[in-house]
């Protein structure tokens, strides 16, 4: 089986990973409760979407 010929330096690993960063999710603001939410989705906090569309009744038990 083929095997690595030389050891990989830490610098080499870090350099490879320099491009692996994740980007933050773009979030929009809920027009109803001003919480940050995913766009094109109902707000999980207040349950509204596009004004009068109240979707789920959220209640703290």
């Amino acid at each position, binding site marked *: 089986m083929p095997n690595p010929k030389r050891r990989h330096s830490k610098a080499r690993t870090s350099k490879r990973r320099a491009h692996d960063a994740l980007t933050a999710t773009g979030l929009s603001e809920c027009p109803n409760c001003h919480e940050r939410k995913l766009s*094109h*989705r*109902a707000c999980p906090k207040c349950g509204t979407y596009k004004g009068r*569309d109240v*979707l*789920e*009744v959220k209640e703290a038990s």
Partner: protein
Amino acid sequence: MRHRNAGYKLGRNTSHRRALLRNLVTSIVMEDRVETTITKAKAARPHVEKLITLGKKGDLHARRLALSYLQTREAVTRLFETVAPRYGERNGGYLRIVRTGFQKGDGAEKAFIELLGAEQVLDEKRQKRAEIRAKRREELDKAMAEQQQQSAGDGTDVSS
């Protein structure tokens, strides 16, 4: 190229997929709103739209065609008598799909699919549910209080 690859397979064979969609479509016609995954909602939408078009035609042939797809007679009745008359002026676009979040477990995206013009019915339904919930809670609270009083009276401890 994805030419001629329209539609959704939903990871099922033809008969399984057809049964699933018929079931889902029947539920949408009966309940006005159904929560499902976004993919299933998108797959069901054209079927519901075609049925509503049949409902607007309203003749016996249309009724028989609807009966051959929907799984219950009540659904056909509801389609022709309460759902289809809502859309006299509108040509298609009878449904709304709203993404609501992600399913626990497999992370699938969930969505509501609902009939336009059903908002009032749905609001009433929700209110009724809330009332029942409130009543049940009240009864529970009362029963609990009674029990506590009783146990305080005869000195036995229920809390342990």
